[in-house]
């Protein structure tokens, strides 16, 4: 599977079947079907198994045979659950899934500094559902997201859910816009606003990236968040999300990284900060090995 995993797993009729099952039988029925579907994908679709291999061979380097097959199933099923959960919220309402926020006080403290912030997200847990926890900020969040994804993704986090007390509007900045949306992003941060970017995938054709160690080998991570933070003096808030139970997620403020201002343009100056992020991600993979959803080879 490519980086855009969610769109490649399943067809239109498959999604419709799940939506119908959710309406008729709730999440239990949907999960029951999901487990069977995922088992079939893993058993009979080699491409699905192969997509899990790069990550699993680094996370579980000594696993072979049936153990590896079970890990592949767990990873695919775990990802499938996040998609079903999003469908549940879309079909039955946000109250079906509870989203909590760990590190609320730390997050609010950063907000109250008035400098703005960059939320550094990752493809773990269900960042789409967990984003609703950002309603705690009571401020608009500008998400850097490709335009074709926005309509697919937006309904999840526009729903009221979990601990959201007030509606938090979201804006989308398309990085395929003029100069990668650079001026929009700068404009948000200069006004003390909140920007949200993904930190674990380098966009296609992007040459500005950093080499850091992750699960034993070097991977490339995008540089833009750290450069933006240094250019504007804005803190980076590293967020992770995890599925805690069938009906609950938790968004976690994993760290606040203050990149010194005025570091310039050279990639090497940002490596220590990206490495810090990679270490958070690695710790996450140790604790929640099947909720890491990069189904491609990060290490090539």
């Amino acid at each position, binding site marked *: 599977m490519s980086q855009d995993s969610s769109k490649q797993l399943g067809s239109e009729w498959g999604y419709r079947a799940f939506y119908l099952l959710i309406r008729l039988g709730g999440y239990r029925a949907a999960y029951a079907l999901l487990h069977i579907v995922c088992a079939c994908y893993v058993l009979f679709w080699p491409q699905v198994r192969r997509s899990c291999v790069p990550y699993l061979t680094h996370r579980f380097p000594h696993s072979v045979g049936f153990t590896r097959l079970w890990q592949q199933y767990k990873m695919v099923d775990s990802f499938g659950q996040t998609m079903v959960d999003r469908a549940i919220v879309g079909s039955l309402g946000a109250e079906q899934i509870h989203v909590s926020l760990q590190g609320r006080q730390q997050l609010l403290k950063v907000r109250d500094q008035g400098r703005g912030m960059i939320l550094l997200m990752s493809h773990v847990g269900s960042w789409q559902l967990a984003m609703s926890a950002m309603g705690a900020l009571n401020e608009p969040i500008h998400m850097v997201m490709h335009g074709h994804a926005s309509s697919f993704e937006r309904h999840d986090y526009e729903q009221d859910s979990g601990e959201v007390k007030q509606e938090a509007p979201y804006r989308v900045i398309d*990085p395929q816009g*003029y*100069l*990668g*949306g*650079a*001026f*929009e*992003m*700068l*404009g948000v941060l200069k006004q003390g606003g909140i920007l949200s970017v993904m930190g674990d995938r380098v966009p296609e054709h992007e*040459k*500005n990236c950093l080499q850091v160690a992750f699960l034993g080998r070097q991977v490339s991570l995008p*540089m*833009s968040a750290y*450069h*933006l933070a240094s*250019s*504007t003096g804005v803190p980076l808030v590293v967020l992770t999300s995890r599925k805690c139970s069938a009906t609950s997620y938790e968004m976690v403020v994993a760290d606040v990284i203050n990149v010194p201002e005025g570091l*310039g*343009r*050279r990639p090497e100056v940002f490596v220590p900060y990206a490495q810090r992020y990679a270490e958070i991600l690695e710790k996450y993979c140790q604790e929640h090995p099947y909720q890491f959803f990069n189904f491609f080879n990060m290490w090539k």
Partner: protein
Amino acid sequence: MTLKEQIKQILIEDLNLEDITAEEIADDEPLFGEGLGLDSLDAVELAVLVQKNFGVEIKDMEEGRPALQSVQALAQFIEEKQGK
């Protein structure tokens, strides 16, 4: 040093443009894409440098797009903002 020469010096030194001298940057050469080949991160850095060195803010894309077309355009933008 003229304003255009200052801008070219900033491009070379602060944006780490290698294998090029200020004399080789034409005043009307496109800064982004074809031409000098700067990218979005360079745009961010350049906006910060313009403010730092000349006290001029590029507020948004509406200002940035014409201002960052070339060294000539940027110099003109800075002069207009400085009221010269």
